[in-house]
């Protein structure tokens, strides 16, 4: 049913709220990609099936006839513990739920209103019943991700009930386009895609172009390894982003919007499609939105998986059907972006911030985060940390709070070594930086960047040279091939790093790495190229001794670099049975029977066959 006026929207909200209220028990099963992979779809089906049986039956916990709502929600963020099931009104969060657990959940919680404690998160012998009290959540400020995990992402009514499209309504009927630009500018909303460019200023530039055809484009081409902030918003709360885009379009006078989303995000695409369709049906997108006379249509473009297409000009080229390669600027995207028209290009998280700024005002927004970087930032926290997952914290939160309070500390009690922030374009932060307040500017000073928000925690057993090699391998693969420094330079840097991790590096190689890294940073054409060398430069700066150890001592103390592991036989333990020598595929082991055998390191291919076959535990490896 189409909402023709703002009053229609208000009454639609009232009825949506009513409808949800009727559900005196709501089960929200995480249908984020991680939990789905863990089988949450089966859990959903099972619980849904079971809930059918109780419709209209009075359960112990309720006075009225029970309405049990079973919904698939977006990502709850606590991916380490998935599949997750949240049950309202108690806000219980069940973790690592299996299909077999459904019966117990149903009979204990739904029927009797009691918690199933064995499925609840516990830490330090404390059982956390309510989701909000779990330390992982308690220390977060979830604004952008507020609805993720709380609503059914495929039902616009749930979004409307949660206050959705209120901001658009306010924007259309109470504010002029100029007011909106001013409000966003005043809020100092900075682009969450990595650069931290002022969103309001961007919009203002587009709004002031003489060309009247303008576009609003959303960058959903999140490609950093391990990052899934934008994906979670698109999958878990797509309308929030659509609403942000619509407000942006109204502010800059655009009628068409494009979402560029990775084809590797099929679920996000599916939910966006559903969301756009539902919004169009209700007149919240399309022609004459809420009777205001404002028209805005959103199209989805699937990216073919090139990391570089996250760069603005490559992204617009890709939408146009051209090869996704960055071009020189000027003209900038705000002047000549998509189809050479003025274009607002922001990423998913940025748009998802817009509606709350409009609803609550710039002043409120400025109260969150730091002065130069207000608001919150979502991070995907992975690696050697106890609580991996998706988090959202105010800007200015320290790394320590993220890793220890929210992340629950380094896995297996190991020592913290570093954090790689900003993915392949970022740098590493070390233990000295644990108390730095993270925002756009502080990180820049440290030679790192927030990037889109990937955060990989590394412990003492992580080889930093290998980390650098890993990211360089990624960037090299993703270089578009246009400018010489990135195309040829990253290739050579990767070669050198491969040489070092295979034990063939030299000290000159380290200088060459630095020389290449500096030149690429200074001369590459686009942001991807300019930041391609950062992981190497920053590990070289912070962990040079590790590099030196690799090239001089030919040793990787973490044991990560396979080529440097030495296989040895303990002569005391060796009985001289010759079993190892007989099983060695390359004849690297020799010796006389009944005397200790020895391994020829030059021949050894480090396959481990000797260790497996030694009956006396005489063979060991040395890092």
């Amino acid at each position, binding site marked *: 049913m189409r909402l023709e006026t703002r009053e229609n929207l208000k009454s639609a909200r009232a009825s949506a709220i009513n409808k949800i209220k009727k559900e005196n028990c709501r089960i929200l099963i995480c249908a984020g990609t991680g939990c789905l992979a863990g089988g949450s779809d089966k859990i959903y089906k099972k619980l849904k099936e079971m809930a059918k049986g109780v419709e209209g039956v009075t359960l112990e916990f309720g006075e009225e006839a029970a309405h049990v709502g079973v919904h698939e929600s977006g990502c709850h963020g606590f991916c380490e513990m998935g599949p997750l099931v949240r049950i309202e009104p108690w806000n219980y969060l069940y973790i690592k739920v299996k299909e077999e657990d459904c019966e117990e959940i149903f009979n204990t919680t739904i029927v009797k209103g009691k918690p199933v404690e064995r499925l609840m998160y516990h830490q330090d012998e404390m059982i956390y019943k309510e989701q909000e009290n779990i330390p992982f959540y308690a220390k977060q400020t979830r604004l952008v991700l507020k609805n993720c995990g709380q609503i059914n992402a495929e039902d616009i009514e749930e979004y409307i009930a949660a206050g959705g499209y209120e901001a658009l309504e306010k924007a259309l009927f109470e504010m002029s386009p100029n007011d909106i630009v001013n409000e966003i500018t005043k809020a100092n909303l900075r682009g969450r895609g990595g650069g931290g460019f002022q969103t309001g200023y961007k919009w203002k530039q587009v709004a002031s172009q003489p060309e009247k055809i303008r576009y609003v484009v959303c960058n959903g081409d999140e490609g950093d390894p391990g990052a899934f902030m934008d994906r979670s918003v698109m999958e878990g709360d797509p309308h929030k982003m659509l609403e942000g885009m619509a407000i942006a379009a109204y502010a800059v006078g655009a009628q068409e919007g494009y979402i560029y989303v990775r084809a590797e995000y099929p679920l996000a695409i599916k939910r966006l499609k559903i969301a756009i369709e539902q919004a169009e049906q209700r007149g919240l997108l399309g022609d004459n939105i809420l009777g205001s006379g404002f028209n805005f249509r959103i199209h989805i473009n699937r990216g073919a998986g090139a990391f570089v297409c996250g760069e603005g000009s490559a992204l617009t080229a890709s939408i146009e059907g051209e*090869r996704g*390669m960055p071009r020189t600027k000027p003209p900038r995207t705000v002047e000549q972006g998509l189809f050479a028209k003025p274009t607002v290009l922001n990423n998913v998280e940025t748009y998802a911030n817009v509606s709350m700024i409009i609803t609550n005002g710039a002043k409120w927004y400025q109260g969150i985060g730091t002065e130069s970087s207000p608001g919150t930032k979502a991070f995907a926290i992975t690696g050697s940390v106890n609580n991996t997952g998706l988090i959202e914290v105010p800007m200015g939160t320290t790394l320590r709070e993220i890793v220890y309070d929210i992340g629950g500390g380094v896995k297996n009690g190991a020592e913290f070594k570093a954090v790689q922030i900003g993915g392949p374009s970022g740098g590493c932060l070390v233990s000295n930086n644990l108390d730095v307040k993270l925002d756009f500017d502080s990180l820049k000073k440290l030679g790192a960047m927030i990037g889109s928000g990937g955060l990989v925690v590394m412990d003492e057993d992580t080889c930093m040279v290998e980390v650098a090699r890993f990211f360089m391998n990624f960037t090299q693969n993703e270089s*578009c091939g246009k*400018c010489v420094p990135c*195309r040829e330079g990253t*290739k050579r840097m990767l*070669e050198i790093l491969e040489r070092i991790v295979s034990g063939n590096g030299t000290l000159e190689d380290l200088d060459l790495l630095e020389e290449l890294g500096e030149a690429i940073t200074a001369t590459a054409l686009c942001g991807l190229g300019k930041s391609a060398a950062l992981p190497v430069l920053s590990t070289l700066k912070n962990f040079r001794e590790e590099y030196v150890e690799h090239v001089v001592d030919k040793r990787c103390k973490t044991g990560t670099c396979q080529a440097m592991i030495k296989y040895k036989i303990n002569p005391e333990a060796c009985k001289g049975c010759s079993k190892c020598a007989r099983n060695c595929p390359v004849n690297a082991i020799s010796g006389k029977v009944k005397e200790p055998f020895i391994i020829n390191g030059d021949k050894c291919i480090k396959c481990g066959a000797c260790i497996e076959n030694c009956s006396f535990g005489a063979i060991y490896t040395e890092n």
Partner: protein
Amino acid sequence: MDYITIDTKRVPIEGENNILSLIRKAGIDLPTFCYHSELSIYGACRMCVVEDDRGRIFASCSEQPRPGMVIYTNTKKIQSYRRLIIELLLSSHCRDCTTCQKNGKCSLQELAYRVGVHAVRFLNNKKKIPLDMSSPSIVRDPNKCILCGDCVRTCDEIQGIGAIDFAFRGSDTQVMPAFNRALSETNCVGCGQCAVVCPTAAISVRTNVTEVWDAITDPAIRVVAQIAPAVRVAIGESFHVARGENSFGKLVAALRVMGFDEIYDTSFAADLTVMEESKELAERLEKSEKLPLFTSCCPGWVKYCENHYPEFTDNISTCRSPQGMFSPLIKDYFKEKDINENKKTIVVSIMPCTAKKGEILRPDNFTDGKQDTDYVITTQEVIRMIKQVGIQFEQLEEEAADMPFAVASGGGTIFGATGGVTEAVLRKLAKDKSYQNLKEISYIGVRGEETVKETTVTLGDREVKIAVVHGLAETGRLLERIKAGEVSYDFVEVMACRRGCIMGGGQPPFAGDRTKKGRMDGLYKADVMSNIRYPDENPVLNHMYQTNIKGKEHKLFHRNIVK
């Protein structure tokens, strides 16, 4: 006036839209691979990076000048970055410099020397990629490609063809036709403009030098050369002759030293073309059919029309090009002599053009089923041959071409520049053959670099609308306007290459603005110096029309178009 400071020198901003052009204006030849004033800004080679007074480093080709900027082009950092960029390029580049076609004329080689790269610290582990020899006009050698994209943009932006583009990504990137098809299977017209802009030998002219030497050194073969108009004003550049100076006489002398048996001037055949084409125009105007009449001298254009606008192929003149008319005429001329002397005549045409190499292979250009022109060698190739022999070109005494095909009008000579064909045809059609009228015709608006030139002349009681266009992208746009009915013409001259044959794909590359102008001026100067200006006043030609070519015009001079 607003200015910026470049290496302590004040340089006024006079409408330049990038810093690089200001740097060049300041007299500094900042090295670049991917910047060309006629192409879009690409910003890939990063050689033009400069530093400002705040230590910011950026590519000057894509930075707009702002008044008061302070730019340094040669700081320590910049020097080292530039060196490293070249070193990186060299590290993945086939470095068989000594045996390379471009040896001595390669921009990569030159810049490596200029910026001081003395060693390459990286191993070249690039796999060898096979050459594409499928086109009669050009050769692609991806092993020498530095991916500056100049060819891609030229083919697309200037020629409107887009036969080649980038494929694959990162360090695997290559320039190739779609699906890595052979160039001969694409819509490539063979204009060779890609080879002109290629800084290395990744795209080069397909050479026939060896075959020509084989013919010259064979006593049983009579080797006849025909020299196209545009060659004479470009060849001298390679031999310390002033740019644009007419070196026809020296070239004739050089060819004699090299062993060519007969040397003729293709301008003679240009006169012939004027006669045939104006006849055709008069007929079509009379019948008001197949108008506009498009010229057919340019094989790049003919092929472009066939590939992209087949609906216009009937409008193209049935005349062969001057080269295409000349060779059968020469062979016909020597027919009996060959039998008597037990010799075989072959025709080698010396052309500014790579597409001509393809034209001679077209069956519609054959006579009695046989190929007429045996080999086409470009200006570049003939320069190489002269250098092989060691002829001191600049010291040669000028010599005249051989009779009877040495006599040509100035109208035939200016065929080599855009508007030349039209001007020559107008001279033929003019009733008034006075000196004054020549002047009038030259002012009519067909000369010059403007991409589309329009004019109207009165012929009898009829207004004839004429357009002259050069560059195929511009031609495509004009054809679209003709199709849409926005414009209409009776006669359209098309040259595939910008500025006409003087800037053909076979001419010496890297011509700057002054050289381009010099070549054009050179042709008009040659025209002024001709004894005969009106093509229809060529006495040899007129005599032949009465004698040996009488009745053979259609067979020898028109394409045998099979439907």
